């Protein structure tokens, strides 16, 4: 895998042809409760964007808008748009099929959540859903996904074992492989390392840095150092609003907002 991709801190007001997605005046409501307010967030193609902010500020909520996860629960309501490029479709439009959205936008969760199936079947599941039946093709793609998730060497002899026999860090990488197998255009991570030990965390961070070669990623994290380590862009959220967005180095070293500065200094959260 190519590790030499350069970091090119991009200007947040770049023209949209390098954007992978973008929220436009996105608001979100849990029933009556507004959890997001008029969020305008650009997501740059083949870059990692980190979402930071104190607990409850709406990071997960925002992330889950991208693959219409909120559709699963009654009473949840979107307002505004999320545009996906280059097709330039609105992910939130009622006529957009959420299943299709989720087929193109992968997600990795806070706690590893493998299916109670074998390692192989976990990764193959998304492929099967897409109608892929031939064993040869399945095997090839499962292997590629596991390699991309830096898990292949550890599990290549245990593909038939239950996924629950893996360690926490391996399970999380398995979930990443599962998401990668279907070649998503955008990959969402919700605090992917917060349930893991330091070593597993390091291996996932390494993976995140490598992924950017072909995937665009959006990562929620509560670990500021992690954001600094893996993301080119960072967005700081507070109370459901996007307070500040910018290249990570700029945001961390010269935040333009007082709230961002206070938060980075640990004065709250």
């Amino acid at each position: 895998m190519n590790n030499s991709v350069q970091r090119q801190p991009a200007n947040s007001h770049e023209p949209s042809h390098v954007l992978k997605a973008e929220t436009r005046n996105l608001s979100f409501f849990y029933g009556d409760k507004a959890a997001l307010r008029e969020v305008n967030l650009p997501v740059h193609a083949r870059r990692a964007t980190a979402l930071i902010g104190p607990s409850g500020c709406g990071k997960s909520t925002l992330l889950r808008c991208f693959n219409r996860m909120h559709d699963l629960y009654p009473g949840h309501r979107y307002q505004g748009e999320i545009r996906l490029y280059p097709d330039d479709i609105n992910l939130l439009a009622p006529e957009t099929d959420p299943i299709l959205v989720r087929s193109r936008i992968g997600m990795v969760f806070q706690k590893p959540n493998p299916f109670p199936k074998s390692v192989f079947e976990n990764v193959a599941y998304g492929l099967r859903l897409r109608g892929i039946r031939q064993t040869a093709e399945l095997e090839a793609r499962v292997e590629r996904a596991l390699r991309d998730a830096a898990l292949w060497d550890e599990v290549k002899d245990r593909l038939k074992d239950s996924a629950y026999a893996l360690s926490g860090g391996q399970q999380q990488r398995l979930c990443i492989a599962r998401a990668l197998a279907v070649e998503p255009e955008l990959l969402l991570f919700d605090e992917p390392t917060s349930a893991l030990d330091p070593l597993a965390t390091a291996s996932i961070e390494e993976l995140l840095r490598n992924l950017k070669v072909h995937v665009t990623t959006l990562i929620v994290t509560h670990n500021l150092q992690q954001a600094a380590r893996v993301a080119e862009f960072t967005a700081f959220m507070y109370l459901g609003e996007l307070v500040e967005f910018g290249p990570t180095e700029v945001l961390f070293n010269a935040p333009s907002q007082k709230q961002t500065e206070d938060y980075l200094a640990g004065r709250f959260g």
Partner: protein
Amino acid sequence: MTNPATIGRLGDRAAARIRWARQLERGFVLGAWALLGLLAVVFLSLFAGVLQTGWERLQPDFFLTFASRRAAQAGILAAWVGTLVVMAVTAAVALPLGVAAGVYLEEYARPGRLTTLIEVNIVNLAGVPSIVYGLLALGLFVRLLGLGASILTAGLTLGLLILPIVVVATREAIRTVPQSIREASYAVGATRWQTVWQHVLPAALPGILTGIIIGLARAIGETAPLVTIGAVTFIAFLPPAPFSPEAPFLSFDWLWAPFTALPIVTFDWTSRPNPAFRPNAAAAALVLTFLTAVMNATAVWLRYRLRRQQLW
């Protein structure tokens, strides 16, 4: 126990109070033990009584002969076959309906009037006396639909009777499947039904099976609804076989066959004036209790395995 004084600072009142609370606690535990002991004695004497009366009749013949006016020759062949067949129909009615209803309520239903209505109904049906189900069956299946006092009628009746149990068990089993599994499935692009069918139901299966077995264990001993549909009959034959050597090979005539069942013969024999039938009744009750015990034990075992295998 330490003298409270050695840890000081609490004051006499608090110390006295704590001592009192401890004593109360000891009394409570002793009481619980006494209660358990009493229950054990009651049930042991119940079983001992039945066993003593019915033991001698538990010979192979008893299972292989039909009812007879002579107590010593009367057997339960028709009854246990009837019970098994009726249970099969009951399961065939309750399992799909109950699981589907449970899945609907847990995975599909949006909170609203309809859902509340269904939920209230299920809660309520769980409390409706079984004899009322018997009258429903009498009015609807026996009379209106003209199914008679047949295996089908009994199976439908008992199936409805245990439906709430299956629904509740299904819902509970489904609820133990973590949301993260569903979200994982949706996140790779599965539809709702794919998620339910491929992930939720397999994971909930042991819990659902436990529920249906417990439901059947309840149904197997039900006497009142069968009495009300008019199943107290002399039956000295088995229902026609579902398979035949000639075409069409499969036949459902047995569904319409008259039947008798273990609780019915138990009740019939116990209410006979001739005391010679008492051992028969006890023996039939033993068989019934044994079947119930086996079912419950299966359910317990399933649940135990389920808990040990619990991965999340």
